[in-house]
C-alpha cells in the first residue's frame, strides 16, 4: 500500500513527473471502471438494468443542485476522518480507531462549550474546536505512543481503544453528563442555538466542508512540501533506514497519529456545533469507519481524499433513491462499495507494470 516514498526523476526525462501523475490517476480510474462492470454483472443476475442504476446514481448524487448538496453534506465529515487514517498511513501505520476520536472529540467539545454558553459563539466555537481536536489527538496519539515506545500493533490498539472510547462516551452521556430532560434519547445539555455554526452561504452544507478541504490541503503541504513530511515518508518507506539516518522516528509516529486524531476529533466537534447542538448517540454514525475506506482508496494522499470522499458521499446520497425507485435493499450500495474497494486495492499491483510510465533515459 505504501507509495515509494521518494522518487527522483532521472536527468533528461522531463515528462516523467507528468507521466507518474497520469499513472496515479489512471490506475484508480481503471479500477473504478472495472468495479462498475463487475457490479453491472451482479445487477444483471438480479434482473435489474445497470443503466437504470447508473442513471439513478447520477441523479441522486450529482444530477441536480439538491443532489449535489446532499453529496457534499455527506462527504464533509469524511474528509477529516479519512485524514485520521491517511496521516499515520504515510508512516506505514494502519489506524482504524477514528470512530472513537470522532465521538470523544464531539463530547469534549460539548463539555468545553457548556460553561461558556452565555459567552457567545466567538468564544464557544474556538473552545469547541480546540477541545475536540485535542481530545481526538490524545486518543489516537495513545495508539501511536504504544507503537513507538512499546511496539504494540497500532491497528489492534486503535481498534480496541475505539471500543473503550465508545463505552466511555456512552457511560458519560447516559450518566453524569446526561440532561435529565432527554428521556428516551440520552443526551448531554445543549450548547444553545445561538452558539451553533451556520451553514455555508449559498450552500445548504455545514462549514465542515470548507474546513475539511482546508485540512486536506494543509496536510498535503505538510506531507509533500515540508521536511517533517519528508522525514515521515522516509520512515514509511523504510523504518530502519530512517532510524539509521537519525530521524526522530518515535516522535514522528506519535505526531502523525496525534494530528490524524485531531482531525477526527475536530470532525466530531463540528458535527456537534453544526448539527446536533449536543452530544448523543447520533455522533456514533460510522464516519470514522468510512474514513478508513476513503483513505485507502486515496492511497493516503490528502488531495486524493477529496474526490474519494465525494464518490462515497455520492453513493450514500444516491442510496436512498435506489431503494425507492428500484426496490433494491440498502445493502446494494454496500456491495458496490465493496467491489470498488477491492478493485482499487487490487489496482495497486498495476503500478510499475507499464513501461511507458517508468523513468526513461540512462
Amino acid at each position: 500500500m505504501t507509495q515509494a516514498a521518494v522518487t527522483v526523476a532521472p536527468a533528461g526525462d522531463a515528462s516523467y513527473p507528468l507521466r507518474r501523475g497520469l499513472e496515479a490517476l489512471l490506475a484508480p480510474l481503471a479500477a473504478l471502471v472495472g468495479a462498475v462492470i463487475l457490479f453491472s454483472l451482479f445487477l444483471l443476475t438480479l434482473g435489474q438494468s445497470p443503466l437504470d442504476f447508473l442513471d439513478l446514481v447520477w441523479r441522486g448524487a450529482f444530477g441536480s443542485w439538491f443532489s449535489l448538496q446532499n453529496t457534499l453534506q455527506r462527504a464533509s465529515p469524511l474528509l477529516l476522518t479519512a485524514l485520521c487514517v491517511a496521516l499515520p498511513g504515510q508512516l506505514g501505520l494502519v489506524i482504524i480507531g477514528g470512530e472513537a476520536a470522532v465521538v470523544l472529540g464531539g463530547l469534549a467539545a460539548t463539555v468545553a462549550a457548556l460553561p461558556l454558553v452565555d459567552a457567545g459563539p466567538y468564544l464557544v466555537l474556538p473552545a469547541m474546536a480546540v477541545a475536540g481536536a485535542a481530545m481526538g489527538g490524545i486518543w489516537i496519539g495513545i495508539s501511536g505512543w504504544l507503537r513507538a515506545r512499546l511496539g504494540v500493533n497500532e491497528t489492534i490498539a486503535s481498534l480496541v481503544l475505539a471500543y473503550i472510547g465508545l463505552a466511555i462516551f456512552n457511560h458519560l452521556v447516559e450518566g453524569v453528563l446526561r440532561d435529565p430532560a432527554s428521556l428516551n434519547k440520552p443526551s448531554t445539555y445543549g450548547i444553545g442555538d445561538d452558539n451553533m455554526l451556520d451553514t455555508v452561504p449559498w450552500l445548504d452544507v455545514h462549514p465542515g466542508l470548507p474546513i475539511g478541504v482546508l485540512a486536506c490541503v494543509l496536510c498535503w503541504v505538510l506531507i509533500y512540501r515540508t521536511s517533517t513530511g519528508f522525514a515521515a515518508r522516509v520512515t514509511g518507506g523504510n523504518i530502519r533506514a530512517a532510524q539509521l539516518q537519525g530521524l526522530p522516528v518515535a516522535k514522528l509516529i506519535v505526531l502523525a497519529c496525534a494530528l490524524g486524531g485531531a482531525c477526527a476529533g475536530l470532525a466530531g466537534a463540528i458535527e456537534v456545533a453544526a448539527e446536533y447542538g449536543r452530544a448523543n448517540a447520533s455522533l456514533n454514525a460510522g464516519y470514522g469507519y468510512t474514513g478508513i475506506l476513503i483513505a485507502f482508496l486515496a492511497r493516503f494522499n490528502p488531495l486524493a481524499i477529496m474526490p474519494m470522499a465525494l464518490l462515497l458521499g455520492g453513493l450514500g446520497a444516491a442510496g436512498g433513491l435506489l431503494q425507492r425507485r428500484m426496490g433494491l435493499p440498502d445493502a446494494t450500495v454496500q456491495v458496490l462499495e465493496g467491489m470498488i474497494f477491492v478493485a482499487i486495492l487490487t489496482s495497486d499491483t498495476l503500478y510499475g507494470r507499464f513501461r511507458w510510465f517508468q523513468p526513461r533515459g540512462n
Partner: protein
Amino acid sequence: MRQTRSSNPGLSRRTMLTGLGLGATTGLAITPAAAKELVVGFIYVGPKDDYGYNQAHAEAAALLKKMPGVKIVEEEKVPETDDVSKTMESMIKLDGATLLFPTSFGYFDPYMLKMAAKYKNVQFRHCGGLWQKDKHPMNTGSYFGYIGMCQYLNGIAAAYATKSKKIGFIAAKPIPQVLINVNSFALGARSVDPSITTTVIFTGDWSMPVKEAEATNGLADQGIDVITCHVDGPKVIMETAERRGIFACGYHADQSKLAPKGYLTGAEWNWITVYKQFIGDEEASKPLPNFVRGGLAENFVKMSPYGPGLSAAGRKNVDQVKAEILKGGYSVFKGPMKDNKGNTVIPAGKAYPETAVELESLNYLVEGVNGAIA
C-alpha cells in the same frame, strides 16, 4: 425554481437513454407524481426485515401499497444524523411526497422539526416523539402505542410456562419506554405467582446481535426458562432461546416462525390502524391530528397468536385480563408499589393507567426484578 432547473437535465438524459433503447423504464420518471396520487414516505432506522421494530412499520406500509391512489416510498437503514434530513428532503423534492413517517425516535429533534419548518405544506408524523402544541409546528405530530399492556400479558403467559420461577428480559437501554415494558412483564408474571423473579440485562444499544445472543445464553445458563426483550430486532434472541429449549415471548412483530416450539405469545404493534387513519384524513383533506396515542382497545397494539407452549389455563387467564384491559381504565402500575431497592414508588390508593404522563418519566425497576438501571 431549483426544482425545475434540476429536473430538466434528468429528463433529457432519460430521453437519450430511451433513444438508445437501453432499458430506461417508465417507473423511473423524475417528475413528482400526479396531483391526485398521495405520495407517502416511510423512513426506517434498520432493515425492513428485522423481525422487529422496523418490520412492524414496513408490514403496515406493505398493506398501504395496496390502497388505490396511494404511493408508498420507503428507505431503510437511515441513521439518526443529518442523513435523515436529506432523505426527507429527497422524498419531498424527487418523489413529491406530502406525508412523511420518520419512524425512529432520534429522527424527531432536530431533523424532522427542521424539515417541517422548511416545508410547511408537507405533513410530518413521527413515531414515539412527544409532540407539544406550544413547542412544535402544526404540520408535525407524533403517534405511539401503549405496548406495555401487551408486555403485562406476556408476563402472565410466562408465569404459566416457567418451571424454575425465574424469567428474563433483554433490554437495550434503561430509558422510560423500555423500563415500562420490563416492569409490566415482571408485574404480569407476579400477578399470577408473586414468587417469580425477573432478571433484566441491558445490552446498551438498540441493535447488538452478539450481545443479545450472549445475554440469552447467559440467562438460560442461570436456569431462566422464559425470556422476552425490548431491542430493535428480536430475531437472534428468539432463535437462541429456541435452540436452548426455553420459552420466549415476542416483541414488536410476530416472531413465532423463529421459535415454533417455544413461542408463547408476543406483544406486537399494529401500525396499520394509525397509518390508515392519517392517510384517510389526508385524502379527505381533513386536518391531521397532532398527538395520537392508543392501546389494545384502539387496536394500536395486538397480541401474537398463542403458541403450543402455553397451557389452556394460561390462555384463559391472558384472555380474561385482556378483556378487562379492553374495557378501559386498567392500571398495571398501582400502589402500594415498591421498587427493587425497597423504596415505595407508588403510594397506596394511587394508580397510573397506561395514559398517565407520570409513566413517561419512569425511572425504577419494580420489586421482583433483578438488575440495576445505573
